[in-house]
Each structure stands twice: as structure tokens, then as C-alpha cells.
């Protein structure tokens, strides 16, 4: 029987909202539209849907299924599937935690924008000067100093305003996860549903802007040339799998942790489908807002949409959108309100992803070392806040960028390890049987095929491709390191990834406090035949 004393979600909706909240983050609003536009517009939807069906949903089912079957957070679940794989669960949780260290800073900048825009509601003046959104981002939000440029390796002066807002973010993270799924299950009703409300309002406002249709055409008009040769197809497919993988929060261990708190009879397969479609639907929908605004901005600045999109998805949110806001022909107070709605939705979408990432580690530590979860949560939040100082300075933006780039590769490695563990060690058939036993919707051999063959092959290919792109500059004089940054900062990014992996190994070797830590829980399936099979699985594992 699953552990009866384990916390449970109050209802299915709370779980789904938490999972959707975790999956849907800042990247859904600014990354997907940018990737879609760059990889063929509407034509990109074809590889994207294929990636969603063959990697996104199957991997999410794997994480839900494993977490539920093993009744534990990622380290526990993977350790129970096979002891030697426990490290991968810790690695996933540590990677997620490391990402939160800088993710919280980005959210802190968003809070800064919110606070400034809130003041604009009363002062009747936007925070940034006309046409100065980029300058404002760099000098007011990032460096906090009008005289200081964002510079690689420059660690002073400290941006105290960012430190302050970072404190608020970590405070909220602690508040959300202090009581585990009980508190998360309540918070997500606000942090997930309110942004959707705001996004709907923004959508109707955005599509009515002059030039929105031109922006939407750029977003979705298919560029079939991106799919007409084999190399082009490979490029678009890689972009699609990468997007699906990053956007679904796979490889952080959070989905396993969340699923471990589900009751015995839980529709694992349908939950995964709902989460995946909600996540993809949100990013597809987010593209309508983003590109409507970009179309409007292009028209107003006398440029083409492609020219205002630029090369950075980050810039779309922090530069293009504010620039567009100042051009909307309404009163300044209303401009500020639109900005507040936009940054407010980013803030809420961001925080529920952030606290879910910390929760993955908290749940793992709590499972293995039996430390009170409030204490773990508090310690991790204080630690995260302190590490945040690394990013609250002129060099923080570049450091953040490099770390993000390399930690993202870690996600793919963990995804690959998960596929190997379930596909080749634990056995896809066993997990499939568990999922089918507890779910309304049955999954077929195709899911096994995706986990055993298709997804690992794609992930290996993506890893090789990324490795080649990242380090080509070592032997190719014409190439540069990531974003043209110096070698040393790329090495720091890589070291962060190695450090997360090392933390995984150390925690896996640490002595556990619970004697039944590796004991696979048995399930009292209604179907006797399935029960027998499941018990056998437990013994084998």
C-alpha cells in the first residue's frame, strides 16, 4: 500500500493547477513565440506537435507514473526504481534549485517593473523615457545604476533594489511551499488562474492594436522553406523537441514529486495530457499576445516585425513590450495598467514555476533525511537568497545567461537517464501497467516505443548538437562561444552543471534516515491480476 501518512493533494484540480503552474513559466510567453517564428512560423507547428506527442507527453507520463508508483520525490522514485539511479533524481532536483537561484532574480526584475508601473498609475508618467526601454532595463532593473553597464565579470556595485525584490521573491517561495502540497495546493489557485485572466485581457487588448494582424502573420504564416530540405527539417525538429522539453519542466524532478502526492487512484495518463496541452496551449496563446504587440510596435517604429523581434527572446518581454506600451494611444495611466497586467502575469507565471523547483528539492530531502520540511524549505530559501547576490551586479546578467544555457543541457541529460532507467533497467512494461491500472485512459505500446527508442535517440542527437555548437569555438576560429561570451564564463556555466551532478552523487551517497527508503510501495489495485503483477514488479525492483 502507498504510504498512508504521506501528504495528499486536496483534489485533482489542485494537482493539475500546480503541475500546469510549474510547467508554464516565463519562457512560455517569450520563448515559444520566438522559437516558433525563427523555425518556420506556422510550419513549425508540425514538428512541434510531433515532438509534443512523441516526447513531451510520454516523458511527462513517465515522470508522473514513476513518482506515483514509487510514492516519492525524484531521488526516492529513481532510487526505488534502481538504487544506482538515485543520483539522477538528486541531480535533477539540484539542477532545478540552481536554476531557481537566478530565475528568482529575473522574477525580482519583473517585481521591480510591477512596482514602478504601479506608481505610474498615480504619477501619470511611465517609468522609462520614450524609446529608452532597453536603457531602463539595463540601468534600472539589471545594474540598478545609471552609470553602470552590464559587463561580463563585473561584480560590483551591488544592485540593492534587485536584492530587495529578490528577498520578496524568496519570501513568497517559502510561503508557498512551507506546508508542502497543502500550501502549494492553495496558492496555485491564485498564481495559476489569475495570470490566465490577465493574459485573456491582454490578448483582447493586443489583437485590437493597429498592426497586430501583421505581427500575427509573422508569427504563424508558414515558411515552408524551413522544412524543405533534410538539414532544415532536422533543425526545425531539434528546435521543436528542445522547446517541448524545456517548457514542460521535465528533468527537474518536480513532476515526480508532485505526482507522488496523488492519491492511489489517479488518472496519470489524462493528467499528463491535460498538463501538456495546457502548457502548449498557453505558449501558443502567448504568441498571439507577443506578436500582436510586436506587429503594433513594428508599425509604430516604422520597422518590419522581423526587425523588432530581434535575436533575444528575453528582450521581447523587457524591451519590446515596454516600448510598445508607450506607443499605445491611450492615457498614460492605462498604458501603465496594461504594463502592470503583462508584468503581473509574468510574475505569477514565474513564481509558481520557481516554488515548484524548490519544492522538488525540499520533498527529496524530506523523504530521505526525515528533516522537517519547513526547516528544509527555510534553509534552501535563505541559501538561494544569498546566492542571488551573484546576480545582483553588473556581471549578473551574463553569468545568469551562461548558467541557464548549460543547466538546460543538464535537463536533457537527466531526461535521457530517465529514459534509460525506465526503458532499459526498470522496464517500460511495468510502469505502463501501473499507469494503466490507475488511469482512466490506457496507454499503448507506442508510449514504450517513445521512451525506449525515440526520445533517447532525439535527446542524444540534441546533446551532441548542443555540445558541438557550444564548444566549436575551441577548434574553429570562425565560431564564437555561447553568445560571444569569453571562454571562462562558459566554463563557469559548465562547472555549474558539473556541480549539480556532483551534488547529486554526494546526496545519493549520504546516509538515509529511513530504513524503508528504498522499499518499493505496493499498490492495492482493484484489478487482482494487475495487483499480482505490480507486487511482482516491486520485488524485482
Amino acid at each position, binding site marked *: 500500500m502507498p504510504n498512508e501518512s504521506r501528504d495528499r493533494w486536496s483534489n485533482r484540480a489542485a494537482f493539475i493547477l500546480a503541475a500546469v503552474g510549474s510547467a508554464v513559466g516565463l519562457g512560455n510567453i517569450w520563448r515559444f513565440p520566438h522559437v516558433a*517564428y525563427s523555425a518556420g512560423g506556422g510550419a513549425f507547428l508540425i514538428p512541434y506537435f510531433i515532438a509534443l506527442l512523441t516526447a513531451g507527453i510520454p516523458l511527462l507520463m513517465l515522470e508522473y507514473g514513476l513518482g506515483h508508483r514509487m510514492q516519492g520525490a525524484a531521488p526516492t522514485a529513481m532510487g526505488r526504481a534502481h538504487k544506482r539511479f538515485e543520483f539522477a533524481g538528486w541531480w535533477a532536483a539540484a539542477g532545478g534549485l540552481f536554476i531557481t537561484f537566478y530565475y528568482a532574480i529575473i522574477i525580482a526584475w519583473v517585481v521591480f517593473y510591477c512596482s514602478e508601473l504601479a506608481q505610474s498609475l498615480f504619477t501619470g508618467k511611465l517609468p522609462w523615457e520614450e524609446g529608452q526601454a532597453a536603457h531602463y532595463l539595463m540601468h534600472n532593473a539589471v545594474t540598478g545604476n545609471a552609470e553602470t553597464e552590464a559587463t561580463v565579470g563585473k561584480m560590483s556595485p551591488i544592485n540593492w533594489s534587485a536584492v530587495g525584490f529578490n528577498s520578496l521573491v524568496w519570501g513568497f517561495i517559502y510561503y508557498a511551499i512551507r506546508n508542502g502540497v497543502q500550501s502549494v495546493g492553495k496558492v496555485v489557485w491564485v498564481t495559476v488562474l489569475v495570470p490566465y485572466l490577465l493574459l485573456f485581457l491582454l490578448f483582447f487588448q493586443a489583437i485590437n492594436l493597429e498592426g497586430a494582424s501583421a505581427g500575427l502573420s509573422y508569427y504563424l504564416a508558414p*515558411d515552408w522553406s524551413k522544412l524543405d530540405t533534410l538539414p532544415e527539417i532536422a533543425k526545425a525538429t531539434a528546435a521543436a523537441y528542445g522547446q517541448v522539453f524545456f517548457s514542460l519542466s521535465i528533468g527537474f524532478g518536480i513532476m515526480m514529486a508532485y505526482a507522488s502526492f496523488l492519491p492511489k487512484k489517479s488518472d496519470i495518463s489524462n493528467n499528463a495530457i491535460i498538463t501538456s496541452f495546457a502548457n502548449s496551449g498557453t505558449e501558443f496563446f502567448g504568441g498571439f499576445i507577443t506578436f500582436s504587440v510586436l506587429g503594433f510596435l513594428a508599425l509604430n517604429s516604422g*520597422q518590419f516585425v522581423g526587425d523588432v523581434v530581434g535575436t533575444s527572446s528575453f528582450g521581447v518581454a523587457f524591451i519590446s513590450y515596454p516600448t510598445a506600451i508607450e506607443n499605445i494611444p491611450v492615457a498614460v495611466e492605462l498604458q501603465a495598467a496594461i504594463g502592470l497586467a503583462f508584468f503581473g502575469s509574468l510574475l505569477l507565471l514565474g513564481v509558481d514555476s520557481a516554488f515548484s523547483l524548490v519544492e522538488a528539492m525540499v520533498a527529496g530531502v524530506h523523504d530521505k533525511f526525515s528533516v522537517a520540511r519547513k526547516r528544509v524549505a527555510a534553509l534552501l530559501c535563505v541559501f538561494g537568497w544569498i546566492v542571488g547576490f551573484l546576480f545582483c551586479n553588473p556581471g549578473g546578467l551574463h553569468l545568469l545567461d551562461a548558467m541557464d544555457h548549460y543547466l538546460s543541457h543538464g535537463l536533457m541529460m537527466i531526461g535521457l537517464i530517465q529514459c534509460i532507467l525506465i526503458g532499459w533497467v526498470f522496464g517500460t512494461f511495468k510502469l505502463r501497467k501501473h499507469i494503466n491500472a490507475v488511469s482512466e485512459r490506457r496507454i499503448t505500446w507506442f508510449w514504450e516505443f517513445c521512451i525506449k527508442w525515440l526520445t533517447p535517440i532525439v535527446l542524444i542527437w540534441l546533446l551532441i548538437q548542443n555540445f558541438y555548437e557550444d564548444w566549436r569555438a575551441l577548434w574553429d576560429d570562425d565560431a564564437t562561444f555561447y553568445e560571444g561570451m569569453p571562454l571562462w564564463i562558459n566554463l563557469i556555466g559548465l562547472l555549474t552543471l558539473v556541480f549539480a551532478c556532483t551534488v547529486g552523487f554526494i546526496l545519493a551517497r549520504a546516509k538515509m534516515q529511513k530504513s524503508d527508503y528504498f522499499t518499493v510501495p505496493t499498490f492495492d489495485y482493484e484489478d487482482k491480476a494487475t495487483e499480482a503483477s505490480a507486487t511482482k514488479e516491486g520485488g524485482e525492483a
Partner: protein
Amino acid sequence: MTLTLRTICMSFALAAALLVGACSSEEPASPQFTDAEKELVAEVNDEKNALDVFDAAARIHEYLRTTDFDALIKEVAESDEDEEAKAGKTARLTLRKEWLERRRAEHIEALTNELVSSNDASREFRKRIAGPFDTLMTNRNDALRGIFEGRIAESEVDLKAIKVEPKPAVPASKDSEAVPAETIAHAIARTMNEAIREFYALWEASTLLDEKAEQSVTQFVVFSTGKDLPYIQGFKPITDEREKADMLESLRWFALRFPDGYVAGWITELDDKEPDLKSEAHIGNPLRNLGVSDSHDSAERNLARGIVEDLFAVFGKEMQPTKDFRKNLVKGFSEESDLTFPNAWALVLAIFGSVVLFGGLAWSIFLAVQSGRKERLVARSE
């Protein structure tokens, strides 16, 4: 203002040439300037300002334009006079022409130096030069715009005030077909075209200006293309690359001077009320790339980008002309959108994506709700 050393040297050279000419019995080296020319080549006093120098250059330029020395030389060569007299006359004409051209170049160089070194002079100069031209052209453009918008009937336009004279009808003759009387709109557009060309012609010599000088006279740089505007006379199918380039150049011209796009729109409207984008020859075709997202470096995109940059340079923070230009481009020349509705393919894919994602989500939620209801019923019955 400071005249260059070169100017002074040239003056000495002129004096020396006159002296040598006077002493020589073999060659009529003296240019034998007319009184008007003597006045034109006379030194511009150091105390005079940039505008006076410009006026002097402009007067020389106008004189050279109206006095076609090449034609005069040709006339002499074809005359019945003896060869010696012909050679003498030709040499004098050539000398006169060269002296005038040289003096014009000196003035422009001196002017350039002054404009580069003094912002006040530069500002004053632009105001002075652009003022009358701008007023006239703006009035003409307003009239043209009024006609297109239907606010003014063609007959209501005060043609004298804007100095426009429509060409009368030409009856059919042995050699040519009948030509109908020129419409008022056409006449205004033609006159504007001619005025731009003339304005530029005055500045042909400004090719001597270096890059810095060009920057200092930005407002004139935007008029810096002296090519003809072949399509002002009506739509002509584009048949080769050269014509396409000419068309683009024309568009650039129009768009620069009239960024609200009325003239560019008029080109399209003139002969083809319903632009047929399927036709290879249509004027809109070369610009279709504007709407294709991956054509970042196409000639058309670069052209449009160049126009936008020029508009920024001319109008600064006043975004309306740039915005109007962009809007006109999108509406008139791009298949991406007409600014009221996205392109058809984009709509199809928006619907497709929405059906797959939101349909899939709705169906999954529906199944979840159904299963929840079933569970509740079972629980209740137990």
C-alpha cells in the same frame, strides 16, 4: 568664413593665365568671359556667409545648366569658319566652362567646410535652402492628397498657387496618336517629380562633398538620387532587373519625399485599381519579399530599411511619416497582411493550432470531469 588656400591659388592661376594669354600671340588663352560670367567667377568675399557662397554656387550651376557649353562647342565645330578660328573659339568656350565648374566646386568645398565646422551655419543653411522648396512641395502634396482623399475636386485646385500647369490634349497627327489632356493629379505629381529632379540637379556637384559633409546636410542627402523617375508617367510592367531597380529607386524617391505614401499609392492606383499580385510584372511583386519573414536581407527589405532610416534622420522623433510609410508598404506592397486581417495561411494555422491544443485540452478536461462524476456516483451508491 574662410576660403581655402586652393581658392586663392586658383585666383592667382587665373590671373597668371590671363597674363600669359595676353602675352601670347599664338593661342587665345583668355576665356574672354562675358560680363555675367565675370560676375559669377568673381571671388566671394571672405566676410560673406555660407548662404552667400551657396547662392554663388547655385548661380553658377544655373548658368551652366542653361548655357549648354557642349552644345555651343558642337555648334562651333560644325560651323563654316576656318579651323584656326574654330580652335580659338572652342578653346575659349572650354576654358569658360572649366573656370565656371572649378569655381562652383570651390564654392561647394568652402561651403562644406563651413557647414561641417559650424552647426549654426548648417542649421541656417538648411532652413534657407529647404524653406521655399518645402513650402511649394508641401502645398502640392496637400493638393494631391486632397484629390486622392476626395476632399478636393480636381477643378478646385488652385494651380497657379502651386505653380502647376497640366499639359493640354494633343490631337492625333500623322506621326503620333492623340494624347488626352493631362489630369490635374497627374500634372501635380509630374511637376513635383520635376521639381525634385531640378532640386537635385542643383546638387549634382555635391558629389564632391565628403562623407562628413554629407552628414551635415542630411536633409539634402535624402534627395541625393538624381535618377529619372520612369514610373511617374504611369505604370509600366517591369520586364528586367534594371527596370525593377529603377522602380525601387523611384519608390525610394517618392517615399522619402512623401512618406505618407500617397504618391506611392497613386502609382499603383493609376493603372491598376486592383493590384494583381499574381502577375509577375506587377509593381507590387518585387516588394512581396517585404512580407516574408525570412527575407531579412533581401534588396527590398534593405531598401525599405534604408528609407526608414532616412525618415528617422529627417523627421527625428516625429514618427507619423515613418509610420505612414510603413503602413503604406504593408497595405500596398506586402502580402503578409492588409493590417485588418492576418495572412490567410497564418489564419489557417492559427485555427489548426487552436483546434489541436485547445480542443485536446478541452476533451481531456471533459474526460476528467466525466470520470470524476462517475467516481462520485459510485462512492454515493456505496
